């Protein structure tokens, strides 16, 4: 059934939405424009602004929720102003204010919700709460033009293989313990690698110098996988590394090769299961070029192709929240103030996807 998308179309013939993201250590503000009708190759969403500021912890440390929340509160007004300026949009032109309702870290999520409520009441605009994961998926589809792909969502907090069916993004496979980004970040802390621009990026660079493969556990369970055992094992290998016959770069290389091979394998299993040849990689770890390369080799072997985006859209951002929120807004979704509390746990498959056929 075709969804009804334009019941709320303003007289000017297009929509504008502002999106606010702050579920982890990035604060992002984006402004998106949709014209009427179903989005398609000839009717793409327009990115008017996509600004971001990242809180980084010192090397050897992870970021703490209270420090991140403070960072988001500090930057909120500046980033919203900057986004409006870049987009050349006035607050009164907006149709709605979209915000990340979850999943994520409690304190950072809350600080952004308070900001969202404030500007929504200041400018008398409706609020639309957005599932962070659905934001990633919808933005990935829009940017790459992938119509109905199997989605691998890989970030600091999430590792899921997802496919769309009957108005929901259904989770076919996921991590049984820690997320792949978390595994990489924590290993970066063991090696005391810098957290700027991101620990995963620095591991990726170091892995390029690695030559020797160190055997690690390989733990795939059907379409699910487990990574905490691998982390514990490699942490042990990294002790007294100066006296070993392999280097830190070798360990980064071995860790990436192992984790990514597992990710590609479960993605391929899901593709075989739902009979799809398209794959879309989203989330912060999706920026990793080695992962994209491996995924591409697998997809081509199946007569298909891989879709991925760059850091502007892979890494948490405001535009994806604006975009997914606006899709919801167009089908009548609104989040009243009393329902605008955020939640740390909000599964991808809880969202009823009204905007897709």
């Amino acid at each position, binding site marked *: 059934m075709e969804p009804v998308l334009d019941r709320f179309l303003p007289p000017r013939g297009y929509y504008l939405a502002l999106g606010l993201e702050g579920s982890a250590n990035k604060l992002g503000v984006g402004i998106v424009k949709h014209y009427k009708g179903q989005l398609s190759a000839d009717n793409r969403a327009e990115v008017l602004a996509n600004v971001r500021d990242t809180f980084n912890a010192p090397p050897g440390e992870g970021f703490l929720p209270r420090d991140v929340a403070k960072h988001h509160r500090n930057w909120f007004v500046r980033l919203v102003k900057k986004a409006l300026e870049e987009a050349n949009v006035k607050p009164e032109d907006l149709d709605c204010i979209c915000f990340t309702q979850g999943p994520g870290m409690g304190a950072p999520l809350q600080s952004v919700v308070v900001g969202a409520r404030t500007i929504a009441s200041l400018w008398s605009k409706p609020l639309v709460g957005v599932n962070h994961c659905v934001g990633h998926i919808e933005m990935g589809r829009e940017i790459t033009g992938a119509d109905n792909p199997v989605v691998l969502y890989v970030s*600091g907090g999430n590792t899921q293989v997802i496919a769309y069916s009957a108005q929901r993004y259904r989770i076919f496979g996921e991590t049984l313990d820690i997320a792949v980004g978390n595994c990489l970040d924590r290993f970066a802390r063991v090696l005391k690698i810098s957290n700027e621009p991101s620990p995963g990026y620095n591991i990726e660079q170091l892995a390029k110098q690695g030559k020797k493969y160190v055997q690690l556990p390989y733990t795939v369970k059907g379409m699910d996988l487990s990574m905490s055992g691998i982390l514990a094992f490699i942490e042990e290998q990294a002790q007294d590394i100066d006296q070993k016959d392999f280097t830190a770069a070798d360990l980064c290389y071995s860790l990436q*090769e192992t984790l990514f*091979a597992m990710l590609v394998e479960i993605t391929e299993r899901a593709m075989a299961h739902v009979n799809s040849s398209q794959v879309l990689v989203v989330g912060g770890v999706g920026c990793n070029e080695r992962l994209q390369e491996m995924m591409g080799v697998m997809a081509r072997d199946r007569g298909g192709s891989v879709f991925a985006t760059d850091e502007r859209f892979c890494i948490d951002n405001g535009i994806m929240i604006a975009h997914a929120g606006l899709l919801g807004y167009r089908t009548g979704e609104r989040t009243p103030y009393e329902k605008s509390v955020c939640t*740390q746990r909000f599964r991808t498959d809880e969202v009823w996807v009204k905007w897709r056929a």
Partner: protein
Amino acid sequence: MSLIDRGFSVRIPADMAELEPELIAQGAEALTFVVDCCEGPYPKCVAKYRPPKPYRIAELDQPLRKRRTNAEVRVLRKLADAQIACPRVVSVDDKQGLIYMELIKGQSLKQVTWDASDVSSVRPLFIRFGELVAGIHALNIAHGDLTTSNAMVDSESGELKLIDFGLASQSANVEEKAVDIYVLERAIASTHPDSANQLVDAVLMGYQADPTSHTAQVMNRLQVVRQRGRKRAMLG
């Protein structure tokens, strides 16, 4: 070769190519063919081939394929000794990652369930599914990839048989068995969303049918595994 026509770029071993293989499934790690074997008890059998995966580095890929081929054969032989309904092994070539096994004629439980007019007609099959899983768990084997695609309804006997032990592990503990069931629950929920609850109930009923087995322990652990899966923080 028909594989190339379908856009796949996999080469198959030369000795297998002589058996006029016909591709029936391309899974994530293996290609499954029906081949003609004139000798032996099975005139037609299944060749399961694990090709090298070009996305994996060779140091990781080769040992993994060999390990999985050998592990699968060991599991299948153990199951056959215990008279569990699964394909019988005909011959093995672990260097090339090849297993020849009995062909089960019929449809997958997934297809049978999709085609069924109502849930109650397939309920006995799902109860039987649970019993079979309890049977393999009693041998301390975890299947590793339980889905409705990996259970076949034999068109000759009507019997339900488990296939694809490619990710099976031996000496499975309570945790692995609970994860086995959890993976199946989730597979049913995503493949048969409309009737998932009834189907899972039937599986769990069959699973717990044998009161002498240690399935109660696994069921307790299943609660823990479910909590972990559903309530993990899932930070951005």
